[in-house]
Structure formats: C-alpha cells, structure tokens
C-alpha cells in the first residue's frame, strides 16, 4: 500500500529494529557457491533506476544493488566502511573527513575501460543533489551540510552547519559517477543516466526488457568481492494476486513485500520462507484540529477508546504487527514503553464525548449545541487497497457505535495530497508514516510546521510540545534527549493529535533455495551480495 514517504530524522543506529536474518546467517564469510538467478517480483514498475531522482521503493531497492554509499550499515546496525575506508570527526563535531578506498572502479560504461572512483565523484554527487534544478526528495535531508571539498583524490571533507547527533549514518547516501551524467550540473529524468545507471555496487545493470524487467548481473570487480548470485531480475507485476500466484508457481523466486492477505496462504507452503522485517512505518488516523469538533482533546481520546485495534490487527493483518501508543518508531530508544495505547472501551469513549458536551441525538448521532458529530475521512485510492478499505471501514463502524458518523471519501492520490496538505480540506485522514534510514518527528507536531505543504497538516499546536521538540533537537547528550523524547511521547499519546494504530511487520517471501538472506528494513537489498543459491538448486 502507498505510504506517505516523508523525510523524518531519527537515526538508524538507535533503532534496535529486528533485522530479518535467515537461519543460515551465522555462518561467516566461508566459501559460498556462486551462480544462479534470482527473479524477484515487484508490484508496479520502477520509474528511474538512479539513487537521486528515484522516489519510490521499487527504484530505491534497485539502486541499492547498483550503488554504494561512503558508509554502510551492517546487520548489527553499526556504521561500517563502504566506499570510505576510514574517517575522522573534528572536535567541534562539524568536520567529517573521509578517506576513500582507492581500489574501487565504476561499472564499465559499454566497452570503455572501467573508470576509478575518486573524491571528485563524491563532491560531484553532493553538488548534483543540492542543485535546485535537480528534482530529488534527498535535498531536505542534507541541508545540515554546509560544504564539501576534495582534499585529494582519495580524501573528502564535509563541513556541517551545526553539530548533528549520529551524522555519520547519514553519509550512507549513494555516490554517482562524475563521468556518468550527460549534464554535469544537475540531474533530471531525461538524462540517460537515470535509465542506464552505472555504479560501484555488487550488481550492474545489464538490460531493461520492453516490459521493464530489470536484469542485473554480478559485478566481477566488486570491491567487497564478487557477489554470489549471478543475476538479479526485477519483474514488475500489475496485480498482486497474480504476483503471489507467480511465486507459488515458481515463476519468481522472491516477493519483497507480501500482501497481508496472502501471508496465510504462503505460510502453509513448505517451499517458501516468510521472513519478517520491520516496516519502519506506523499507521494512524490524523485529525484536523481546525475543525472545532476535533479541537477538543476529549473527542480525539474518545475515538482512541472507540477503536478495537487488537481486533483489527488480528483479523485484517493476522497479528503481523505491534500496536503503538506514540509517535516514535517502535523499538527505537525514543519509544516510551510505559505509555499504554488506548484500550478498547466504548463506554469510556461515550463517557468522554458526553463530558465534552455531546449528547446522543434521536438518530443515534452525538451532537453538541446543534452540531452533529459528523466527520469526513479522506482516503487515497489505489488499485490494491484492500487493507486500507478494511481499516477505514472498520473505523467508521467503531465510531458509529459510539455515536460519531464518519463519511468515508476515497480520493485519487494526487488530489488527496492537495486536499490534505495544501487546502487542509478534511477532518480525518488514514495514513502511514514511513521512516527512512533517518527520521525525526519534530516536523509532525511543531507549530512552526503548520501551513500549506508542511508536515503538521492537522495544525496541532502546543507550546509545551514545541519547546520540548526544540530542546531535544539542540541537545547532543543522548540520555537527556532520551528523557525528553519519552516525555514527548507521553504527552502526544495523551493529547492524541493522531490516533496511533500499529506498526506492521512486513514479510518477504522467497524460495528456500536462497540462503543467508538478510534484509534491510528500508533499503531491503543492502546485504544481497552475501545471499547465495546452493549449486544443487541453481538449475531450475
């Protein structure tokens, strides 16, 4: 399902997320068989294949196979060298100097002999990214960098505007080759590079079929050593039911994200492994506090009590997830486990509503001095939206039981965005935040973020929260920040600008012939170079 992939800051390394690691993971880098092809199915076609302009998951997953960052994140969540072999950080925490590997070459461009990777490429990438004419979601995330300069061919120094906690992890952004682009100043989608990217990564793009099947082959000269599996093929599907069938019929070997309804079917099948990985996202109902009816905290809390989240999670997602109580990525250090999510308690809900001055009308709908408690729930349309439908309609029913009538209105994705973020023409929305490798909730609830195309779409404003957010931003002391965030969590849970629902566990399903599969929660293919297929299983 479609997420609001917005850029929040919340550093990976502090996320003790369950990284899916298959049984075989422990066996160290012993000699593993090479060869074999891995066909994986995607729902939809990738638009662009480069790390800069691509703005949907499919493309990002592919560029994860083709490119590298200066640093990487290993399965244990530590920052590890990748293109940079070492780094040192200045006293004032504003200077980051990276020593680059000198044995890295770019994928050969056609027949030309491979070009070496140098500091120029790093500088170049940064400049491209920040150029106003480059259209990329990344920009926002690197505004904390003041400048970057090349020290020598294999050294670059970044200077930060201000010290940032765990800045290092942010240097995992992908590096693109200086010689790769047609236009040396900025990158738009009509540059051939976005369709024929060359990188330093374990796999190099071979061909794109007319059906936009992306064929990638092992990079013999990969600096971490040649990846085990010879070929990765991304196959686009237009129908999720067919996608699942394709797996069960061995037409593909892997589905990166299994549709909730198919989980049961695949669990039963011994040929496949269902591997959970943290979605790094949570779903919620967001309220528009501009609506006087919703401005009252008690009403929002009442809605919280009215929902039976456990039931929904159970029967819609067969319990593949965790119910949450607050705005932080579950399992993160900031998440306050002492705060309990609203229990299912309709009576309490009704009581709260009455307390807020609502009385049940003749038609069973609560009303307060003439105003009925009638609200519009805006939901974006997608072809494959069953889960969404279930949740929102269930929501509608639960609220009906406590005397609030909700009108569900499905809108085409773009106009939905316009309505919610530009015109604020809505009462309630159902959406999910997806945290990428770095996230921060400050933008969600700070009053400065109210306004068109700002993240605080619900116009929630509370000076206390504001100050807390600012505080936590400024402090560099980890413990201090932790306490602040826990406070923040408790507060927002009580204030209920959102009704926080749950974070779902994503599942990837793959044929069990594929060994040593570790999945990165967000980038997915980060460790794909270590996956392998036993020789016996390579012949299909």
């Amino acid at each position, binding site marked *: 399902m479609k997420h609001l992939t917005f850029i929040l800051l919340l550093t990976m390394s502090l996320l003790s997320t369950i990284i899916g690691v298959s049984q075989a993971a422990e066996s160290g880098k012993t000699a593993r068989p090479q060869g074999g092809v891995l066909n994986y199915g995607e729902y939809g076609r990738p638009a662009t294949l480069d790390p800069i302009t691509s703005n949907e998951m499919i493309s990002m997953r592919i560029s994860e196979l083709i490119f590298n960052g200066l640093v990487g994140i290993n399965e244990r969540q530590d920052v590890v060298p990748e293109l940079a072999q070492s780094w040192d950080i200045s006293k004032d925490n504003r200077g980051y100097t990276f020593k680059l590997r000198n044995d890295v070459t770019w994928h050969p461009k056609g027949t030309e002999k491979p070009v070496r990777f140098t500091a120029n490429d790093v500088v170049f990438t940064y400049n491209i990214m920040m150029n106003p004419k480059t259209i990329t979601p990344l920009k926002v995330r690197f505004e904390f960098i003041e400048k970057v300069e090349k020290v020598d061919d294999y050294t670059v120094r970044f200077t930060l505007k201000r010290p940032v906690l765990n800045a290092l992890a942010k240097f995992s952004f992908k590096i693109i080759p200086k010689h790769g682009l047609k236009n040396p100043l900025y990158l738009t989608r009509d540059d051939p590079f976005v369709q024929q990217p060359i990188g330093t990564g374990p796999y190099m793009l071979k061909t794109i079929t007319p059906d936009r099947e992306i064929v990638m082959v092992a990079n013999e000269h990969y600096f971490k050593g040649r990846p085990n599996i010879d070929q990765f093929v991304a196959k686009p599907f237009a129908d999720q039911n067919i996608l699942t069938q394709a797996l069960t019929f061995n037409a593909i070997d892997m589905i990166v994200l299994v549709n909730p309804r198919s989980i049961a079917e695949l669990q039963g099948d011994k040929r496949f492994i269902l591997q959970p990985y943290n979605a790094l996202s949570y779903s919620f109902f967001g309220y528009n506090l501009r609506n006087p009816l919703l401005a009252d905290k008690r009403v929002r809390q009442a809605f919280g009590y009215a929902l039976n989240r456990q039931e929904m999670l159970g029967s819609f997602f067969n319990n593949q997830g965790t119910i949450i109580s607050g705005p932080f990525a579950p399992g993160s250090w900031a998440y306050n486990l002492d705060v309990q999510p609203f229990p299912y308690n309709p009576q309490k809900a009704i009581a709260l509503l009455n307390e807020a001055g609502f009385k049940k009308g003749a038609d069973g709908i609560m009303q307060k001095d003439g105003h009925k408690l009638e609200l519009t729930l805006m939901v974006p349309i997608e072809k494959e939206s069953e889960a969404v439908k279930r949740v929102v*309609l269930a929501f509608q029913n639960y609220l009906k039981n406590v005397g609030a009538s909700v009108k569900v209105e*499905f809108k085409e994705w773009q106009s939905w965005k316009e309505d919610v973020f530009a015109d604020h023409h809505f009462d309630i929305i159902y959406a999910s935040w997806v945290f990428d490798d770095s996230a921060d909730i400050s933008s969600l609830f700070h009053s400065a973020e109210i306004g068109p195309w700002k993240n605080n779409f619900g116009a929630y404003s509370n000076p206390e929260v504001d100050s807390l957010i600012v505080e936590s931003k400024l402090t560099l002391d980890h413990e201090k920040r932790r306490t602040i965030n826990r406070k923040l969590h408790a507060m927002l849970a009580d204030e209920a600008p959102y009704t926080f629902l749950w974070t779902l566990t994503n599942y990837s399903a793959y044929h069990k012939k594929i060994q040593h599969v570790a999945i990165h929660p967000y980038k997915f293919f980060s460790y794909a170079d270590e996956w392998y297929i036993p020789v016996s299983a390579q012949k299909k």
Partner: protein
Amino acid sequence: MKKYTQTSGEIGDFSQLPIWQKYALVDLLYVAYGLLIVALVLVSYVLGMFNLLPHDPQQINIELLMASPLSDGYLLGTDFLGRDILSRLIMGIQAYFLPGLLAISISLIVGVVLGVLSGYRGGRIETVIVYFTNLIDSFPRLVLILLVIAAFKPDIYYIMIVMGITGIPTVTTAIANKIRFLAQKSFIEAAIALGLRTRVIIMKHILWYNCRALLIIQATLGMGEAILLETSLSYLGFGVQEPVSSWGNMVQSGANYFLQGNFWPSTAPALAILFTILGFNLLGDGLNNILEDRRGR
C-alpha cells in the same frame, strides 16, 4: 420432428388468440425471463431505496469475515469485511440504476436526434455528424474513461456520461441507415404525399414503427454494458468506491481470494451480473423478434 396443428373447430378471426399461441415460444420465454429480471431489478432498487434489507449492508462483522452462504443469518454469506453479501447485492443496484439510465438516455436521445438529422436532412449536416460519430468511435472507450476519471474524480456519473457519449455513434448510424433504407423504399415520399407533417412522419412512422425494435435492443445492451464497464473500472480501482456497494467492486474485492480457492465472494456478484445482463440481452432479442414478428429462433 416438428408439429404443426390446425386450430380445431371453426377457423375464424384469429386476432383474439392468446399471445402464447401468436408468437414463438422461445421469444416469449426470452421476454418473460427478461421481464422477470427487470422486475427483480426494480424491486431491489425500491428495497434498496427504502432500506428494506436483511442486514445493514454497511455493518461489518469482524468475527465473521467471508462466511460461506447460509451461515447464521447470512443467506449468501459475508464479504471480506463480514458484511452481508445479499444486502450488498440488493444495494448494488442503486449504483447502476440511475447512472445506467442516464447513460442510455444520453446515447439514445442524442443518437436519435443526430441520426434523424443526418438521415432525413442529409447534406452538410450529415457530413458534420458523420465526422462527429467517427471521432467518438476513434476513442477506445475504457481508455477515455480512465483518462477522465483519473483527471477529475472517480464518480459513477462521470463514467456513465462518458459511456453515454461513446454510445451515441451506434445509435446514430443505425437510425440514419434505417431512414436511408426507408427512403430507398420511397416510404418517406409516400408519407409526405399523404400530407403527413414531418414531425409525425419522424416520430410515428420512422421512429416508432420502424426503429423501436432497434432502440429497445440498444437500451437493453446499454444497461448490460454499464454494469460490465463499472466492473472493469472497479478492477482498476476506479469504479464505485467503498463503502457504497456495487456489483463491480464486490466482484473485485471478492476476486482477491479467488486464486486462493475461495470462489464464493466473487462468484455471487458475478452471477448476479451474469443473470442480469443475460436477462437484458434476451429481453432485447425476444422483443425484437416479436415486434418484427419474425419466426422465433
């Protein structure tokens, strides 16, 4: 072995014969079935309108997702949200009834007018109209509709209006040809010679006497198409939107479980569609045969 029987007794004036002796049995069966369906549609429309349903079609029941037919109180079982399928089927008619009629009337009325103009007047108007019809015909209907609703909003009325418009050419050309044919048979001259007023000729002699069968066929086909079209769009996610029920979005949501071997949730609405459309088509055929008084086939 075919049997032909002479009416026994005095052979006199036969116009009094009951219709089931007048016309081919097949046609009568067709029409009967068609009328039955139409009646059912009307009834369920009314039922829906006054909400006289076994269950609340919106009421979801999370304990009982996708119950099989005849399970406690749910005659046709429940859907992926535990809502009563029967009630939603009945309610589903609402989605098509008026919009469908709108679509049909657009294509019939405009079609007839243009058809008469081009067939009866001819000349420059005709060329213009021909261009117009060809123009509409050049669009793949579904693509056009996709475009429109993606551009504006997925509203069944938008869909049906577009469908109505795309339906115009068929009617227009049919009517125009009919008129030309009649003109060839110097039928119209005769009428004019009889001193009939143009309006009468067109309305009564051309449209009513000679085109009614054709129009009926078009109308019945139109309703069928409306339903199928909405279904296709539902599959693409642009049909009637939840929680409002339409047969299309019922088939679609049910079909998500089809390949897993759970056929019923999609089969139920699919059958509804099947029988209804069949009814409309047969009604058209039967009436056509009877009005043209052809031997039933």
